């Protein structure tokens, strides 16, 4: 085959530059050989595939630590599984939860508008301080109407005759954006006006936007609740109805206070869903389908429109965007996955940063038995917790609350046909999930089509996943969203983001990849201090102590406020020499408010350089014996100590090397003081009973 010659060249070109003759050969082949072109593309794609990071997996516990160090003990998988399970059970989580809790993200989300914490401002059960936005077809013209009513009552708070069902509730739960529809004066068609209803003040705004010829589609509130992003769509050519013209979608952003609208031409006919608008950085995130030029199926893209500049990121093949929070922080992708029985009908998810589309939580399993469809993922309001709703072929649906983007605890929200001691109506299936805007409660609703077409279901606390009551839409209607009605509740539900927390704004150190050599001068304590200030590995250690990546990190010190890395400082470095060479180790105490948290170790080679690489836990003083004590112990009444330094040594009969005081007496005799427990604290041995070095 002609391309047998060019394949190795194309493969080699991925590693190094080809000679001019080889480049010419490649050029000629690529111009003439379609197979060669495909092969070149495949090589590039394969390099990306091979470079994709392996999903983080829980590292099994190290059994040698418990087995003693003198002899390596064989790895016993069963014992490890039992140990992991016991740890997990002790923590009150399943093995799956344990694995998820130790999975660490590789990427720190970009700072965005911060996310207000979930609240529980009302009662755990249905509460008159909250209400539902509903749609129905009971209008005087038989057209759709929108109603708002209390959770506890069928009494209508307000009603719009003639409105589209695509409403949006602001993050504060207090403002509802609605498209009201009107017949045109000529009676030949409809126009639509965008209005906002304040559920607490019970007032309407004037029309904020009018669409005369295009049908309004999605509405999304900005994360601070002061603006809207929405789209309109024609049924043919833009501005003029015509079946031959393609469907055209226009996107707009709108400031609700001034009613100033701006057309987002960059998203025009590309975006099909907008997720967030962070007005503090003027960033809009969306997803869409970029059509292929050949007419073939297009590719899914995640879109970031920041200050007018559109960036697009390809959604990986076979993945789809399941959800993204309204704060511009995280986007959840889902895909099919292998089941326990070997089929590929299960599901998995991963989380990415909305701004950069970098993975922040590696893929994790959602369902391990065959599913009917991709899971539905809903962000718990005011949080990064996920409500994951999955339907199965041969089992009832599951609805779970996954804390902290799937990295935290998981709890089941839905239990089909749960006991109903009060005679209430419990759901056996889930057809719709609505969350209260304070993030306190989820309504798991089932539609009863056999009776009067009503919705009913369970009220579940998102605080502790407990079942708190029954819900029955006795007056019919389709619930679309949850709103706050009580002014006292609204006062606590300010939709504006709270000031960013330390964790929101902290940017992690990037740790060098394995094999990267990191060295700096470490001859003096001052050089060690300076070097540590720029050492990413040391910064990573401090981040683990402060729980930057996750609060359950094994190195996490509960005394240190979460993500307050700068509250940590270092004490006086102590050098232990690998006598007689000049190399050795610095022991550097890491402190919080003066108390020792951990001791970091920094290397010094013969050339006087090294870097941080290890750490010793505990708050015991280091070294455990002071120089003055060592001089005292290492001297005799007739032969005082003239010098003392820490060196690595071990008693001849011991295998444990430890930092040891090397005391030189005035007579020149050398004695070693072992400050730790080898042979008992403060053991003193002469020169000929000690082995130096490590």
């Amino acid at each position, binding site marked *: 085959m002609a391309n047998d010659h060019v394949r190795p060249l194309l493969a*080699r070109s991925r590693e190094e530059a080809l000679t001019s003759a080889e480049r010419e050969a490649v050029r000629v082949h690529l111009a003439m050989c379609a197979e060669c072109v495909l092969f070149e593309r495949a090589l590039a794609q394969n*390099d990306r595939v091979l470079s994709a990071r*392996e999903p983080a997996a829980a590292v099994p516990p190290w059994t040698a630590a418990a087995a003693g160090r003198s002899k390596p003990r064989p790895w016993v998988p069963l014992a490890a599984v039992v140990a992991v399970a016991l740890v997990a059970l002790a923590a009150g989580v399943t093995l799956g939860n344990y694995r998820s809790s130790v999975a660490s993200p590789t990427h720190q989300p970009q700072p965005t508008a911060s996310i207000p914490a979930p609240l529980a401002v009302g009662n755990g059960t249905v509460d008159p301080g909250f209400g539902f936005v509903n749609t129905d077809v009971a209008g005087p013209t038989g057209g759709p109407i929108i109603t708002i009513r209390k959770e506890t009552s069928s009494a209508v708070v307000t009603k719009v005759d003639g409105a589209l069902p695509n409403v949006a509730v602001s993050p504060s739960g207090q403002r509802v954006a609605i498209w009201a529809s009107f017949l045109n004066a000529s009676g030949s068609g409809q126009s639509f006006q965008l209005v906002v209803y304040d559920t607490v003040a019970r007032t309407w705004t004037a029309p904020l936007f009018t669409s005369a010829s295009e049908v309004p589609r999605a509405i999304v509130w900005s994360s601070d609740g002061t603006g809207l992003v929405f789209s309109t769509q024609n049924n043919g050519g833009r501005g003029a109805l015509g079946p031959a013209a393609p469907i055209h979608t226009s996107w707009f952003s709108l400031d609700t206070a001034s009613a100033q609208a701006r057309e987002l031409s960059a998203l025009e006919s590309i975006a099909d869903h907008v997720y967030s608008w962070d007005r503090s950085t003027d960033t809009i995130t969306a997803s869409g389908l970029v059509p292929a030029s050949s007419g073939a199926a297009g590719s899914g893209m995640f879109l970031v429109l920041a200050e007018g500049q559109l960036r697009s990121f390809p959604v990986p093949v076979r993945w789809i965007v399941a959800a993204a929070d309204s704060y511009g922080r995280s986007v959840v992708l889902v895909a099919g996955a292998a089941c326990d029985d070997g089929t590929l009908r299960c599901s998995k998810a991963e989380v990415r940063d909305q701004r950069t589309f970098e993975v922040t939580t590696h893929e994790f399993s959602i369902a391990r038995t065959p599913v009917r469809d991709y899971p539905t993922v809903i962000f718990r309001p005011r949080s990064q917790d996920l409500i994951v709703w999955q339907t199965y072929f041969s089992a009832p649906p599951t609805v779970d609350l996954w804390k902290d983007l799937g990295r935290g605890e998981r709890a089941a929200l839905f239990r089909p046909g749960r006991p109903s001691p009060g005679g209430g109506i419990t759901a056996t299936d889930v057809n719709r999930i609505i969350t209260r805007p304070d993030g306190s409660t989820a309504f798991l609703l089932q539609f009863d089509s056999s009776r009067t077409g009503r919705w009913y279901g369970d009220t579940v606390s998102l605080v502790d996943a407990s079942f708190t009551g029954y819900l029955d839409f006795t007056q019919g209607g389709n619930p679309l969203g949850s709103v706050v009605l009580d002014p006292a509740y609204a006062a606590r539900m300010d939709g504006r983001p709270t000031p960013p927390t330390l964790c929101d704004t902290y940017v992690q150190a990037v740790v060098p990849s394995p094999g990267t050599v990191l060295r700096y001068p470490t001859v003096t304590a001052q050089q060690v201090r300076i070097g540590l200030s720029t050492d990413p590995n040391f910064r990573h250690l401090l981040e683990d102590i402060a729980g930057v990546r996750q609060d359950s990190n094994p190195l996490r010190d509960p005394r240190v406020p979460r993500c307050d890395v700068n509250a940590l400082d270092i004490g006086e470095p102590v050098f232990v020499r690998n006598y007689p060479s000049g190399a050795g180790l610095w022991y550097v105490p890491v402190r919080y408010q003066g108390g020792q948290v951990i001791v970091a170790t920094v290397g010094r080679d013969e050339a006087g350089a090294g870097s941080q690489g290890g750490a010793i836990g505990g708050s015991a003083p280091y070294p455990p014996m002071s120089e003055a004590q060592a001089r005292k112990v290492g001297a005799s009444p007739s032969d005082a100590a003239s010098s003392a330094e820490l060196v690595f040594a071990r008693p001849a009969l011991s295998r444990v090397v430890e930092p040891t005081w090397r005391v030189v007496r005035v007579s020149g005799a050398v004695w070693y003081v072992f400050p730790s427990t080898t042979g008992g604290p403060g053991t003193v041995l002469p020169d000929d009973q000690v082995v130096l070095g490590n």
Partner: protein
Amino acid sequence: VRVDTEQTVGTSVTAGAVDWDAVYARHAAALLGYLRRLTRDQETAEDLMHTTFQRAMVAKRVPDAIRLGPWLYRIATNLVIDRARRARRFQFLPFTGREVSPSESGADGDAVRIALRAIPAELAATLVLRLHEGFSRSEIAGMTGVSERTVKWRLEQGRIAFSAAYARAMEGEHG
């Protein structure tokens, strides 16, 4: 107090003087990811990772901090290659007619892993060390005990072989 070999630059030490807890904490996750890429499931990868550390712990001398990580990769790579060679000698034979060979089942559903297992282990390991782990060609040469020229050849042939195997694996997944 133990000696963490990450610090002792420039000299090798005896395995008994190494703080294996610290070494494990530092290298286990990366090694597990590397082995996971080259093996069919998590359990196999974990087994090989622990065998890697077992071998390291009984070594007479352990390299210094700079070379410790690559040295562990070298042990792990040899284990993967040994395992692949053994697997070729002892093929799985169905005995009821319904079993599926683990090497063919794609139980992990990952075409990349299936393709990597379908090509010679030396080529697969070299590709993964280069593209997944990010080592330079000279580092890989040091790890695998071959010349840098051989590494280049393995990368070239590995890419060609992987391309065909990956296409087959993708067809199998979709088909």
